[in-house]
C-alpha cells in the first residue's frame, strides 16, 4: 500500500503532464471506437431477434458486422498499447530517482502500472461519453433500408462494463509487459541490437491461410456454409497482418538503400527497426480500404433497390472511417511517444547541428512510408478490381467516389494527426542543455 500512497502523493504534487493527457485521449478514442462498433453489432442483433429484418439477410449482415469488428479490434489493442507506452515514456527518470531513494522494484512497478491504469480509467469514462455523444449521429445512417434508432445502438450495460474493463485490462497487461521487458534486460532499453527479426513463419502462416481459402471458398473442396465462407474471408483479410510488416520492412529497406535525403534515410531505417509498429498504424486502414474498394462495386452490380448491396458499401465506408480515425489517433500518439522515447537522440542531433525540419521530416516520413505501402498498396489492389469494370459502375459512380474520398481522407487525417507530434520534436530537441 505504500506504493499506492506514494503514487497518489506524487500525482497530487506534480499534477498531470502533457503525456498523461495524450495517453488518456488515446484510451478515450480506443474506448469510443470499441463501443461504436459494439453498438453497431448490437443493432443488427436486435433487428434479427425482433424479426425487423429478413432472417437470412439479417444473419449475414450480423456476421459481416462481426468481421468489421474483428478488423478494428487489433487497432483498438494497438492504440491502447501506444497509450501505455506514452504513459510510461517519462517513467525512466522518475523511477530511477525512486529506486535511488530506496523504493523496491515492485513498488516502482506498482506505481508505473497505477499510472497506466489511472489514465485508462479516465480515458474509458471520457470515451464512453464520446460514444454516447456520437450515437445520435450514427443513428442517422440507414442500414437494411431502415435508419438505426438510438435504442438499437446502445448495447446492454454489461457490454459497456465489459468494454471498459477490457480497455483497462489491456492497459494493465501492456504496462506489466512493458515493465517486464525493462526488468529482464536493463540494457535492452539503451542498447538495441539489430532490427526486430520478423519470423519467416509469417509467410508460412499466410500461405496456409491462402491455401485454406482457395480450397474452401474458391475450389469448394468440401461444401461449406455461407458463414464459414465469411469466416474464411475475414481470416484471409486478417492474415494480411502476418505479411504486412514483412512487406513494409522490405519496401523500407529499398527506400533506405536509395535514400538521398537524410530524413528519408532516417525514417526508412526506423521503419526497418520497428516494422510492426509501422504496420499497426496502417494495417486496419489498408484492409478497410481494400475491402471498401471491392464493396463499392456492390451497389452498381446488384439489382436496383437491393438494400443488401447498399449496406455492404455503407458498412465498408463506416469501417474505413473508424479505421481512419483510429489510425490517425494512433499515428499521432505513437509518434509522440517515439519522440519522447528518443529524447536523448533528438537532443544529440540538435547539438550536432541537425536542423529541426530534418528531424520533423523524419517523423512524418516514418508514417508516410507505411501509409504509402499499406494504404497505397491496398488502394492500388482495389483499383485493379475497379478500373477494368468501369463500364459497370459508370452510371452509378457515387459509392466508388465515396470510397476514393474516404481513402484519401483517411490518409490526410493520419498525416495531419502525425503533424501534431512535430511541435514536440522542437520542444524535446531544444530542451535546456543541462549545465
Amino acid at each position, binding site marked *: 500500500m505504500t506504493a499506492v500512497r506514494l503514487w497518489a502523493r506524487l500525482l497530487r504534487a506534480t499534477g498531470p503532464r502533457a503525456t498523461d493527457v495524450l495517453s488518456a485521449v488515446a484510451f478515450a478514442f480506443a474506448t469510443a471506437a470499441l463501443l461504436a462498433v459494439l453498438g453497431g453489432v448490437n443493432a443488427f442483433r436486435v433487428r434479427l431477434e425482433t424479426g425487423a429484418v429478413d432472417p437470412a439477410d439479417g444473419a449475414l449482415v450480423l456476421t459481416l458486422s462481426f468481421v468489421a469488428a474483428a478488423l478494428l479490434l487489433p487497432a483498438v489493442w494497438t492504440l491502447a498499447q501506444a497509450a501505455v507506452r506514452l504513459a510510461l515514456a517519462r517513467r525512466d527518470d522518475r523511477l530511477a530517482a525512486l529506486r535511488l531513494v530506496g523504493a523496491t522494484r515492485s513498488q516502482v512497478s506498482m506505481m508505473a502500472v497505477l499510472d497506466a491504469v489511472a489514465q485508462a480509467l479516465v480515458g474509458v469514462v471520457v470515451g464512453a461519453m464520446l460514444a454516447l455523444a456520437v450515437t445520435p449521429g450514427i443513428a442517422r445512417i440507414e442500414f437494411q433500408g431502415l435508419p438505426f434508432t438510438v435504442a438499437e445502438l446502445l448495447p446492454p450495460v454489461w457490454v459497456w462494463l465489459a468494454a471498459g474493463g477490457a480497455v483497462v485490462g489491456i492497459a494493465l497487461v501492456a504496462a506489466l509487459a512493458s515493465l517486464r521487458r525493462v526488468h529482464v534486460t536493463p540494457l535492452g532499453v539503451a*542498447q538495441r541490437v539489430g532490427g526486430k527479426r520478423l519470423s519467416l513463419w509469417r509467410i508460412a502462416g499466410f500461405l496456409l491461410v491462402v491455401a485454406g481459402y482457395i480450397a474452401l471458398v474458391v475450389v469448394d473442396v468440401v461444401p461449406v456454409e455461407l458463414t464459414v465462407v465469411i469466416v474464411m474471408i475475414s481470416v484471409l483479410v486478417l492474415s494480411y497482418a502476418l505479411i504486412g510488416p514483412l512487406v513494409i520492412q522490405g519496401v523500407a529497406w529499398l527506400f533506405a538503400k536509395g535514400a*538521398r535525403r537524410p530524413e528519408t534515410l532516417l525514417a526508412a*531505417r*526506423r521503419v526497418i527497426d520497428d516494422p510492426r509498429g509501422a504496420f499497426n498504424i496502417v494495417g486496419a486502414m489498408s484492409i478497410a480500404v481494400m475491402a471498401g474498394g471491392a464493396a463499392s462495386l456492390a451497389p452498381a452490380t446488384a439489382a436496383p433497390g437491393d438494400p443488401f448491396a447498399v449496406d455492404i458499401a455503407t458498412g465498408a465506408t463506416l469501417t474505413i472511417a473508424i479505421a481512419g480515425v483510429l489510425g490517425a489517433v494512433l499515428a499521432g500518439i505513437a509518434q509522440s511517444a517515439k519522440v519522447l522515447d528518443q529524447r536523448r537522440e533528438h537532443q544529440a542531433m540538435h*547539438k*550536432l547541428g*541537425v536542423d529541426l525540419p530534418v528531424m520533423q521530416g523524419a517523423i512524418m516520413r516514418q508514417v508516410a512510408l507505411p501509409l504509402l505501402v499499406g494504404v497505397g498498396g491496398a488502394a492500388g489492389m482495389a483499383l485493379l478490381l475497379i478500373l477494368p469494370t468501369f463500364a459497370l459502375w459508370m452510371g452509378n459512380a457515387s459509392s466508388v467516389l465515396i470510397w476514393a474520398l474516404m481513402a484519401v481522407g483517411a490518409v490526410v487525417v493520419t498525416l495531419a494527426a502525425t503533424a501534431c507530434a512535430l511541435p514536440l520534436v522542437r520542444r524535446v530537441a531544444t530542451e535546456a*542543455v543541462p549545465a
Partner: protein
Amino acid sequence: MQTNRLDAHQLTHTYGQGDSAAPALADLSLTIGSNGPEAVAIMGPSGSGKSTLLHVLAGMIAPDAGRVVWRGSDLATMRDSRRTKLRRSDFGFVFQSGQLLPELPAIENVALPLMLGGGLRSGAEAAAGALLHRLGLGGMLHRRPGELSGGQAQRVAIARALVGSPGIVFADEPTGALDRSTGQAVMALLIGATLGHGASLVVVTHDAEVAAACSRVIRLEDGRVVSDGPADGGADAFAHAGAQGAGAQHAHAAPAAQPALVDQPTLVGQTALIEQEPVRWGAQAPAHPAPYGAPEPRGNAATPYPEPSYAAPHSASVPVAPQSAPVPVAPQSAPVQHVTSYGAARGEQQVENPMRQWIGQSAGVPVANPAHGGVNGFGGAR
C-alpha cells in the same frame, strides 16, 4: 584560408534567477587555436562551469553577456538556425555516449553530416567508409551502434565528428563511459585524428589522464579560469623530438609545437599521426584495397593507399644523464630507446611497436621531472 581560431571575450552566464542564481561563467575570456590546431583540455570540479563553457563555445547556448568569435562572426548574437548550421559545417562533436543514431549502421551515421550539408549519398558514404577504414573500423561499416563495443562506438563518433572537416572538435567527457585502457586508446585516436585533420580539439573532462594527453589544460573554478598552460607530463618532450626529428623539415609550414601531416613520423604534442603502409598485425589485417573510392593518398604519392595509423605514445624511455643542477634551464635531449603506445590499428589494445620509428630519435626529457628516466605521454607510468 580561414583560420580556425575561436575567441571568447568576457563570457558571463548565469543559471536561475534571484537568490538561487548560480553563475556558471564569470567574465571568462580565452582563445583557442591562435597558433594553429591544438588539443585543449578544460578541467575543473563539478559546477565549475566547464560544460557550460563548452556549450557556449560550441554555440549551443547563447551566453548572458560576452562574445564568441569564430572566423570573424559572433556566435552569441547569431540566429539559432544559423548557429545550428554552423555547428554542422564548422564543428564536430563527441559526447560521452548516446550520440549515434541507433537505427543507422556505422557508415550511415558517419555519412549523415555530409548528407545534411547537401552532399550526395554516394560521396558521403565514400568519405565515411574511407574514414572508418582509417580509424580501424573497416570491418564494421554496416554494424549498428548496439552491435559495437563502447570504444568502437566512440571511434564511430570520432569519425562522424571529423567527416565534415571541422575547424574545431568539441568533446564532452568522451571517455567517461569507457574503461581505462579503452578510454586511453579512444583519447589517443581522438587527439591524433583531430589534429591530423588540422582541427583543434576542446575536451571537457574530469580525468587527469585525458587532460595530460592534451597540449594545453585550462582549469576552471566558479566560472573563472584559474590556470591555463601546457599539460603536465611529456608534451615538451615530444614537441622537441618533432622539432629535431629527421622528418621535421617535411612538415607543413606550421610552428614546431603544432602537429603536421608529414611523410616521416613527427613527434608532436603527445600524439603523433603516422602516415605509412599499414602496420600488419599477423594474419589478421589484410591490406585494404582502397575501398569506397578512397581519397587520393596524402603524403607520399608513390604509396598506393597509405593507411595512416593513429597512435599515442604511452611511454618512451630515454637515458637520463646525471644531473648536476637541480633543474636544468633547457630540456635535455636523448635518443629514444623504447616506445610503448596505444594505436587505432589494433583496436583498443595496447601495442608495442607502431612507433618504432621513434627509436633512436632525439627526445627531450621533461624539464619538471628530469630524474624520471621516462617520458610519460599519457599520464601514469606503466
